[in-house]
Each structure stands twice: as structure tokens, then as C-alpha cells.
């Protein structure tokens, strides 16, 4: 029994050995099984699940009413009565952090979903038709990508007025070109495969080829891009609400709460720290999930 591993890579060069490697077929179920075996995924999923529970049941979990102003105990230190303390208006910070998960998750997920759908359609069209279509749509997409994301969002939100649907639409549109670029690259590779030629030879329409033949084969990169983008979307929502462009007050909102209290950070640090930690933990959780999804699908 002599271990002979002189090579660090697990990649097997020849066809016969590749056959050994892929002896088991990768079906969605084994992707799940692999994810459930990955510690990275489990940690990320645990944190995310926590925030999802907060988003759904926030009002019943929260110890206090997040909107109730207790003017007798403003800026109270974290204590038994208020675990995370209270803010300048005497509102319970813990309750505001718990309930605040709702809007940010709704906005981030819906916006990413919108961006992914738009980006997938754009990317499929660009990649499949190529040529002039690719050139024209591609230039437009590049122009959008060249504009600073935050400034574009600020302009749009100022024009449309801040509200949850506005945020979803603006962030979705800003993300679409990024996702389109990824999808286009994947489609370019698929387009050259012979099954696409076979579909054309039996008279299938371009629409059928794009959505029924090619789309299922580029779902992996789309799924990875989707999870990565959710992380970015959370950050973008937090940034915009920090700038005062998020859901209007007094809605509990992490970005807005940091913004409202950061001028007194040296005196009442808990009023900024806990919303900031909430943002950080959510972004990290999503990124952990994205990493593990990517590594499982890349195999």
C-alpha cells in the first residue's frame, strides 16, 4: 500500500480516467447533497436563515415595538431592558435590527431576480445572434457598465421618488448588464455545439433554441451569478438607504439607522454598531453560500 500522490491536481488527463471520474451522473440531488456536506454553505445558510426568519416574523419576535419612542430612555446603554440599547428617539435598537431585515431582503432578492431575468434575456440574445445585434446591444451594455452604479441609482431614485418598487427596479436595471455579460459568454460557447445546429436543421425557431435548448445548459453560471449578485444588492440597498434614498422613515432600516446615528457614534456606539453588524453578517452569509454553490457547480 504505497501512496503515490506526486501530483497536487486531481485532474485526470486521459479519457479512460475521466470516465472513472464521471462514473456517477451529476443530478440536482447530488448538487444538494454536496452543498449540505460543505461547512461553508452550512454556516452561510444558517446565518441567512436566521435573517429570513427575522424578515418574516420580525414583528412577533421583536421584544419591543420598533417604532415606539420611549422619550424617557433615549440613548440608553445596552442593558437587560434593551439588549442593544436605544437610539436618540428612545427606540429599541434590537427590535429595529430584527424588523429591519424585512425590507432589505425583499428589495435585494427581488432586484437581483429582476436583474437576472433581464440580464439572461439580454445575454441570450447577444450571445445567440452575435454579429450586429451583439455589437449594438453590447455597446449599450458597456455604456451602462461605465457609469458609476451609485450615481446612476441616486439619479433614478431622485427622479422617481424613493419607494420599495423604485429601489427594486433601479437596482435590477443596474445589475442586468453585469449578468448579461456572464450569460453572453456562456451562450457563446454553447452556440457552437452541434445540438444547436441539429435544432436549426429540424426547423426550430431562434426563440425555441435560445430558451429551450441553450438556456438549461447555461443555468449553472446564471445561478452562481445570481447568488453573488444578492450580496452586492444587499450592500447597494444599505448604501442607498444610508444616503437617505431607501424606504422613507420611520420604517426600521439598517442603512438609514446608521445614517441617523453615526454623528453621535463616539457617545452612543451601539446605535450604529448593531445595524452595521447586521449588514455585514448578511453580506458574508450570502457570499459564503455563493462560494460553495460556485465550487459545487464548477466540478
Amino acid at each position, binding site marked *: 500500500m504505497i501512496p*503515490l500522490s506526486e501530483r497536487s491536481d*486531481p485532474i485526470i*488527463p*486521459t479519457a479512460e480516467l475521466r*470516465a472513472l471520474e464521471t462514473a456517477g451522473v451529476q443530478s440536482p440531488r447530488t448538487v444538494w447533497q454536496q452543498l449540505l456536506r460543505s461547512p461553508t454553505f452550512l454556516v452561510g445558510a444558517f446565518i441567512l436563515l436566521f435573517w429570513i426568519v427575522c424578515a418574516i416574523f420580525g414583528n412577533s419576535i421583536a421584544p419591543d415595538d420598533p417604532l415606539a419612542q420611549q422619550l424617557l430612555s433615549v440613548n440608553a446603554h445596552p442593558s437587560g431592558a434593551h439588549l442593544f440599547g436605544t437610539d436618540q428617539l428612545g427606540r429599541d435598537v434590537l427590535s429595529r435590527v430584527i424588523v429591519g431585515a424585512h425590507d432589505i431582503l425583499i428589495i435585494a432578492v427581488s432586484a437581483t431576480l429582476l436583474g437576472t431575468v433581464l440580464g439572461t434575456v439580454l445575454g441570450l440574445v447577444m450571445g445567440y445572434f452575435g454579429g450586429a445585434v451583439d455589437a449594438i446591444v453590447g455597446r449599450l451594455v458597456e455604456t451602462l457598465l461605465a457609469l458609476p452604479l451609485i450615481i446612476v441609482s441616486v439619479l433614478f431614485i431622485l427622479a422617481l421618488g424613493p419607494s420599495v418598487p423604485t429601489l427594486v427596479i433601479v437596482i435590477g436595471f443596474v445589475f442586468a448588464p453585469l449578468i448579461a455579460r456572464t450569460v453572453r459568454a456562456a451562450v457563446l460557447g454553447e452556440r457552437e455545439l452541434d*445540438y444547436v*445546429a441539429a435544432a436549426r*436543421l429540424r426547423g426550430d425557431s431562434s426563440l425555441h433554441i435560445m430558451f429551450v435548448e441553450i438556456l438549461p*445548459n447555461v443555468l449553472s453560471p446564471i445561478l452562481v451569478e445570481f447568488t453573488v449578485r444578492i450580496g452586492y444588492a444587499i450592500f447597494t440597498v444599505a448604501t442607498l438607504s444610508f444616503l437617505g434614498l431607501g424606504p422613507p422613515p420611520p420604517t426600521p432600516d439598517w442603512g438609514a439607522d446608521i445614517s441617523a446615528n453615526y454623528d453621535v457614534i463616539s457617545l452612543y456606539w451601539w446605535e450604529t454598531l448593531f445595524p452595521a453588524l447586521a449588514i455585514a453578517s448578511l453580506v458574508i452569509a450570502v457570499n459564503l453560500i455563493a462560494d460553495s454553490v460556485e465550487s459545487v457547480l464548477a466540478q
Partner: protein
Amino acid sequence: MTALTPGQRSDASPEGTGPSDALVVDHLDVTYRVRGHDRRAIADVSFRIARGESYGLVGESGSGKSTLAVAVERYLPRNGRVSAGSISVNGRDVLGLDGDALRDLRSKTVSMVYQEPGRALNPSIRVGRQVAEVFEVAGLRRSEALERAEAMLTKVQISDPGSVMRRYPHQISGGMAQRVVVAMALATDPSLLILDEPTTALDATVEAEILDLVAALRTELGSTVLFISHNLAVIAKMCDRVGVLYAGELVEEGPAGDVFDHPRHPYTVGLLRCIPHGGLRKDHGRLDTIPGFLPSPGAARVGCIFAPRCALADDRCRSESPPMSNLGDGRLVSCFHHDKAADLPRSTPVELALLEHPQAPDVVVRLGALSKTFHAHGEDVKALVDIDLELRRGETLGLVGESGSGKTTLARVLLGLIAPDSDSVIELDGGPLASDVRKRGREQLKALQIVFQNPDSALNRRHSVRRIIGRSVRKLAGLSGEALRQRVIELVEAVRMEQRHLLLRPSQLSGGLKQRVAIARAFGGEPRIVVCDEPTSALDVSVQAAILNLLVDLQLAEQVTYLFISHDLRVVGYLSDRIAVLYLGRLMEVGPADIVFSGPHHPYTEALVSSVPSIGEDRRTRIRLSGEIPSAANPPVGCVFHTRCPRRLETGVCETVEPPLVEVAPGHLMRCHIDIDSLRRLQAAEAPLPPAVAASTD
């Protein structure tokens, strides 16, 4: 061939003594750990290679031959290990070497040449530096190393080594790159040279050149060679002794000529019968096949590993593992019934009721003045030039030529996937056929279908077999509901698959089954013409035979016309009624298959035919093409073939005037300045010759 036999052949017997052996593999087991299970890839394999000997390992994919090659260099992937047995090179135990000794083994003692030369070279380093590096590792100074590199490149018959050394790997052709790799492998004068499918990725003409080169260098340097290939003819040509691997076990071993002329293991017998060699044609009947499948890796090994696929197997074979029997003269075979192996019953019936072709069958498709020019980087690349060709009902037209000759472009233009130049004519049943597939009506779409080379690319990996075939039937035959379901079942049965396969996805099928799905799809709408673009080149020979039989059966049943493209002339010869030869996008010759192959034929066809390695046939003088295929962007003036033509006329007419395509005999057209009678005289004078003479004229 005789010139290649080394002197030490007497040492080659397996009972030979240790020190004379360059490689001894003794009761070797290699296992891979896959998803938590140990899978045995090599099981109890023993063989030895004497110094100066050339040993061939032949086997289909999954036989473990490449695993053996990497195990000798101790270069198994992370999940692989030697679980029993030993390997020694020059008497030193490879498995016991420490880091420095192992590095020494790999850099000086054992060299390896892989299948794809393009991937063996670093694309970002100039060729000269890469070859010189081998010498630097061996301890030479840089300037000295560069000199030695240049000398080595001259030795592998690269005519202008100075300029090749300054180029990057992508700037040289595949054949040239393989010469460079061979030069690097031989640079340190290794004790053992391992060639793992060194010519599989190359054209037949280039393959012949590389094999000649390796044979010549072996004689010159006296190297010991372990030659691994799935191609029995290549092994027969290159090796003194041969071992046949099946599912990780050595089932037969012996002198190459003996083993191939008188195989004693049923597997070897079956393998040899699968190949359409010796000018076998479909009129001679079906090819034999090996039924069943290779056992899955890691399957329990009870009894003889080949028993489930063997027509001679009895209860003893299924329960008891046959020992290696020594038949004398260095012949070893692991079979209880080796005395009966030659009379192995056929697994497919021979009889094939071929239809008599009427004297003038209807023309189904006519291509007229077909040209295709690609525009790239400001250059006009003429991929097809003025092709006139007819496809008749029920016939098979074989299309041959080296890579880059325009075979696949022709097929894609015919199918409407690539638009030809504007004055080209494509006619179906006498009526015009739109050049763009999107402008063709359903009847026209139905008429023309294709079986692609690579089934992995041709089948949508996210769709089930039922969906893949069903979509074709729905679109082309216009069926739906119960009629559709019935038709899909009929098709699946027509390609000898079972209904349970309908639920599977392509990744759950073997290569041969995948190709059957692709064939069923092509036949979904009762096609008139099916283009077969290298349909068997990705398959093993035993699977290839079954697919060829299937294509012939379907042709007879459906009266379909095939445009059959292949680089394997034996396969084309087996299936084709007529053959068209392409070179640089021009039709050089077209005519009845037997005449095009046996001659008198075009000098280019002659070179193609003579580059095919064969087993146990009378050897013709080998016509070798010198030089590279010219660029299609800048084709030679006059006859496009004159730069490589071994029969170029002294008068200079070949260099200035392009010969027309003329009818030299009824139905036989040729594009050559030499008249047919002179060609007949020239070609009859040189073939066939006895092997010894053939070798010495080389």
C-alpha cells in the same frame, strides 16, 4: 519492417533475466478512489520490455493502458495509487524512489510523448527555449543547450530548425509540434520512451510520417519503446511484441506478427474482426462485433473478465479465473479455450442483402460550381472551390481528405448551416434548394439530416433521449400524441436500443449508445440524405463496427443516401459506393470506391491510401508526402497539389497550369496532368512489393 527489429530480440521472452530488461511490471494493481469507493483500473498485470525492444500495449478506452503509462512514471493522479505489485526501470524499483531519484527518473530515464502535441507544449514559450530547457535540466549551459536543441530538431527531420525554434507552438502545425515533442522526449537519450497514442490526433499522412520518424530514430538510437495505442495496425507496424489489455487485465501477449495473424484470445480475435481491413467492403457482408459492454470500473472480478462478452464462455469461465498459459515462442494467453479462439462464432450474421443499384439511379442532390470563401483578417480563404458533385439515391458517397481540405465545410454548406458563395447551385430533386436552412420548407428540412462526429456535443445534455428524438419527429414528421410516441419507440428499436433508454440523459449513456440516439434523431423524419461527419471517429473499434453495421442496415431499409466523411480510409472504403477526394477545397478525384482506392488513382489519393497502416496485408511502396498542407488563403499556383506531389512532371506544367477535372473512365473523374495510362503504369510498377524491399526503399 525488418530493419526495425532490434538485435536483442532473444532477450524478449518473459522468462528473460532481470538486468537485460528496461522495464519490468510485476503483478501490478492500480486503484482509483472515486466517491469513496476503490476502483481497480489495473488488475494483476505483469510484463517486461527488454532493452532496445519495442513493446505495444493495445486496448480500447477504459482498458487502463494510459493508467499503466503514468504509473511507470509514478505520475498517477491524486486519487490513484499502486495497491499491489512492483514496477522497475533498469532494475531499480520505481515505487521506492525518493524525491531526488524520482526527479532523476523523470528527467533522464523515462520520457513520455502524449496524444495531443498542442497540449504538451507551453503556448507562451518559444519552441527553441522549451527544447533547450530539457538540456538545461540535464545540466548544460544555456548556449550549449540551444545548440543541442537545434541539433535535436534536425534529427527529427525538421528542415529549418532555426526558424522553428523562434516560433511559438501555435505557429507550427500538429505534425511539426509532435516532432518537437519527440525531440524533447529523446533529448536525454532515455532508457525508456513511452508513446501514449502519439498519432491519434493527427492526419493519416502526418501519422505515417511520425511513425516512420519514430521507427528510424529507434533504429538509430536503440531506444526501448512502450507504445500505447487503440489502433492495432499502428501497433503491428511499430512493435516487436504486443500485449492486449482488456478491462485492466493483460489477456494476451506475444510477438506482434504472431498475435495479429493468429490471435488466441477471443477478445483479440473479436477486436481484429471489428476492423474493416484488407479492403473489406459492405458487399462482403457485415462486420463482426463484440457484444455487450466493458465491465464498469471496480466491478467484482469473478471468473474470466471477458466471459460476459465471449461466445466461447462456459460455466468454468464464469466461476474460475483463467491462468496465464504459456504457448511457447513467447506467446501468453489467459483463456481456457485458447485452442478454439480462432473459431470464435460470429456475433452478427454475415449476410447482408445489398440492393442491386440500377444503372443510372436518380440524382437526389446536385452541387454545381459550389464555392465558399471565408473572409478573415482581410484575407480571402477559399475553403471550397468550384465543386461539382452528384448524390444518387441509395448510394454512399465517401468524402476523404486531410484536415483542412474542406470536407466539413462542404457538408455544412449542403445542410444550409453555412452560406456558399452567391453563384453556387444546390439542387434537391432537380429543384433549387435555399442556401440558408431557415429558408427551407419542411419537406426540404426532412430530406437532409446529419449525424455529427461528437455525440457529446450533438446531444443536448439537459434533455432526455425521448425528448431529443421526439422533438425531431414532431418537427420533421409532424406527428404528435400517440403517433409521436409510437414513432419514437420504432426509431429507438431501429437503432437497437431499448425503451428504458428513453428516460435517460446523454451523460448516462456510453459513447456508442449516444451515437445511436444521434442516428435515431437523424432518421426522425424519413430523410433522403444523411450526412455522416466522422460518426465513428470518437468511438472504440468494437463500437465502431456496430455503428457501421447499423448504418448499412438503415440504408437498406430506408433507401437513404449517405454523404460519409471520415479520415479513416478503411471505414470509408467499407461503406462507400463512390468516393470523392478533396484537397485544399478542390475535388481532386471522384469515382467508384474500389477504383479510387485500388488505382490507377490521383497521386494524392495514392499517398492517402499508402499512409494507412495495415495488419498483415501486402505492403505497397509507401508514398510519403513531403511538407505541410499549404494555406488555403494562399494556395499554390497551377495544380494546388504540386508542392507535395511525388509524381510532379518535369515539364513544369504542374507549377503553372491548374489541371481540369476530366472523366478518365466512365464515372471516374480526376484532376491531374498525368494521363490515366501513365498513372496506371507508374503505380503498377511499384506495388505491391515484398516488405523487405519496401522498407529499404524508404
